[in-house]
């Protein structure tokens, strides 16, 4: 896939979201620490990172849903069609959420209201943004949407409660709700982590189909690199609250320049290669972002190439290929290591 063309609809610039704790709020966990990325119209973007990398918090920051306290967006811009969402009023954000930017969450079993029928929850989303729509009309449309996302007997299902649906169907219903108002951007936060492999494939196929049909952009937040390879146009690898490598999927997977990206690639076993291949762990644990010094590469503590330079200064984001950017002082060594591998 070539470099994306078309209008940039979401432009996250140097976003910083901190979690403050302690008596005088002196402990500052820099969950998102200067994250920047862009999403083009209709693009399938994957944001990849481990737990604690700040990938979910960054999505909530875009939606203006970071719980305060303790979360606080302390800097940066989230430009949606050029308008900074961080400066928007509550009313403006309410009009955007669900209508222009929708979100799908990780655990469908807890993300749906347990005491309201699935149909009503979808109808509610429709009626919030279409005040003129009657309840009956909204319910009929909700059932239609459930059919659209591949739920059999949608009229019956619409009248059921979430607990009467399987995990896969709940996630389909969540997706139906998210796309009900035809958003321009769908943020999906680990939508398949709680699901089985076969259902995961079904749900992601559905997301991809809806993206093409509705022309919306999808930001898929995930830790599963395989999923990324299959669906994404471009990838943003996030570590320690910031993007360390971004670019077109093929470029990032074939020619990764950041040791963390390469580490992730080498840590998953590959079904297509002999059994002994893969599973090279990254030493250590994901970083505690309240302890990592601000002016250093967050990955330095786990990186095999780390030098004093990495511990004393943050590597800048530099272009390494067409639309392919990487923030590392040791791009060359990394790429060399990659090229020696199958």
């Amino acid at each position, binding site marked *: 896939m070539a470099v994306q063309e078309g209008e940039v609809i979401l432009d996250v610039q140097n976003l910083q979201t901190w979690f403050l704790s302690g008596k005088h709020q002196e402990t500052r966990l820099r969950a998102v620490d200067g994250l920047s990325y862009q999403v083009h119209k209709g693009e399938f973007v994957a944001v990849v990172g481990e737990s604690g990398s700040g990938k979910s918090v960054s999505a909530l920051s875009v939606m203006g849903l970071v719980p305060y306290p303790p979360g606080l967006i302390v800097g940066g811009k989230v430009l949606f069609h050029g308008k900074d969402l961080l400066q928007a009023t509550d009313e403006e954000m309410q009009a955007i959420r669900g209508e222009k930017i929708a979100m799908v969450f990780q655990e469908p079993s807890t993300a749906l209201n347990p005491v309201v029928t699935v149909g009503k929850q979808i109808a509610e989303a429709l009626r919030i943004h279409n005040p003129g729509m009657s309840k009956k009309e909204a319910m009929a449309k909700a059932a239609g949407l459930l059919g659209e996302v591949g739920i059999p007997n949608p009229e019956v299902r619409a009248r059921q409660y979430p607990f009467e649906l399987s995990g896969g169907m709940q996630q389909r219903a969540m997706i139906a709700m998210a796309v009900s108002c035809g958003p321009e951007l769908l943020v999906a936060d680990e939508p398949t982590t709680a699901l089985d492999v*076969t259902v*995961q*494939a079904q749900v992601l196929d559905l997301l991809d189909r809806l993206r093409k049909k509705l022309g919306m952009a999808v930001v898929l937040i995930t830790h*599963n690199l395989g999923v990324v390879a299959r669906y994404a146009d471009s990838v943003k690898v996030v570590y320690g609250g910031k993007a360390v490598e971004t670019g077109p999927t093929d470029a990032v*997977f074939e020619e990764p320049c950041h040791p963390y990206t390469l580490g992730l690639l080498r*840590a998953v076993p*590959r079904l297509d290669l002999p059994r*002994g291949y893969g599973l090279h762990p990254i030493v250590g*644990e994901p970083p505690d972002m309240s302890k990592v010094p601000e002016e250093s590469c967050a990955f330095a503590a786990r990186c*095999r190439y780390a030098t004093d330079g990495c511990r004393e200064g943050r590597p800048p984001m530099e272009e390494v290929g067409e639309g392919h950017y990487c923030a590392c002082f040791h791009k060359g060594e990394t790429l060399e290591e990659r090229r020696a591998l199958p």
Partner: protein
Amino acid sequence: MKDGAKGPGPDGNLPLEPPPLPGTPDMPVHPGIDEFVDKDIAAREAPEKAKGEYIMEAEGLQMYFPVTKGLFKRKAGDVKAVDGVSFRIRQGRTLGVVGESGSGKSTLGNCVMRNLRPTGGKVVFDGQDVTRLEGKALAAYHKRVTMVTQDPFASLDPRMTVADSVLEGVRINRLADKAGEQALAERMLLMVGLNPKYGSRYPHEFSGGQRQRVSIARALAMGPSFIICDEVVSALDVSVQAQVVGLLQQLQQQLGLSYIFIGHDLSVVRYLSHEVAVMYLGKFMEVAGSDELYGHPLHPYTQALVSAAPIPKPSVDRARPRVSLEGEPPSPIHPPQGCRFCTRCRYAEKRCREEEPALKDAGGGHLVACHKVTGG
């Protein structure tokens, strides 16, 4: 694939030997492990068996849970969580079990572990029938067969130090004196790649991966020869998952352990297993050597599973044939007539809906339960 000869090629003739150890030389996963191996553990272990003997055998294992209804708890049916499963595991080898949620794979693990009392069939461990063990005999069994479970947050008591957790079983069975306990806990922690000084800490001070190491240390403390691993890496991050899988593999080689490795991630199960069984609604659908199974999946369900697992290399992944699987598994209370998979199988025909296929050898020990593959 760049090097076709290395892959599980058409002839699938990869040797079923354990793959090389993970970890490059500059990344020692478990520093100092060697000096601690083989001393006490080996002494407490059962006499070393010649490699190749079957240590664990199950025959027609069944676990039915009754479903009751109404005021008088009338029996309305059974959830056939495990419905006639047989397998044999050699000393020092791993049987992988893959399946979707609800396939009964965890129940199978609990039956073999004898946390559950199977309603039918038998489990033979090291020549002894353990299906009906009770009391002391069961406790003795639990010294030799231990279990590690999925959730590293739920499986450790938050009010016990990790050393206490590790030593719990040892203390109950009075396997060591006070001085010996301390040394044992340190040795176990070191063995799983943790700092032995961490023994006095509490679980909340550890990350998910470290807790899972503590769980493994606890399972090792009694000196078992068999460990049942139930989704041990599912809750972990990829980078940490690789550490834990590597650890399990290293322990197997050093201590001659045998594993049942239960999981839903096909690639991880394959990595660790010598043989893999694919489970669906309480039955094995296909059993074969690890590379044979993934190289030549014969059962339509296995084919769909393998195809659904994405490969983190765009060029390869896009080129693979996709077999998509519609719908979700039916309820295990009312499994479909005939072949259990027939409701989702794209090859299903009349016979599949009427007659349940038996698990048969399709050649070279590759077992499949499918009319289309094994014919009559």
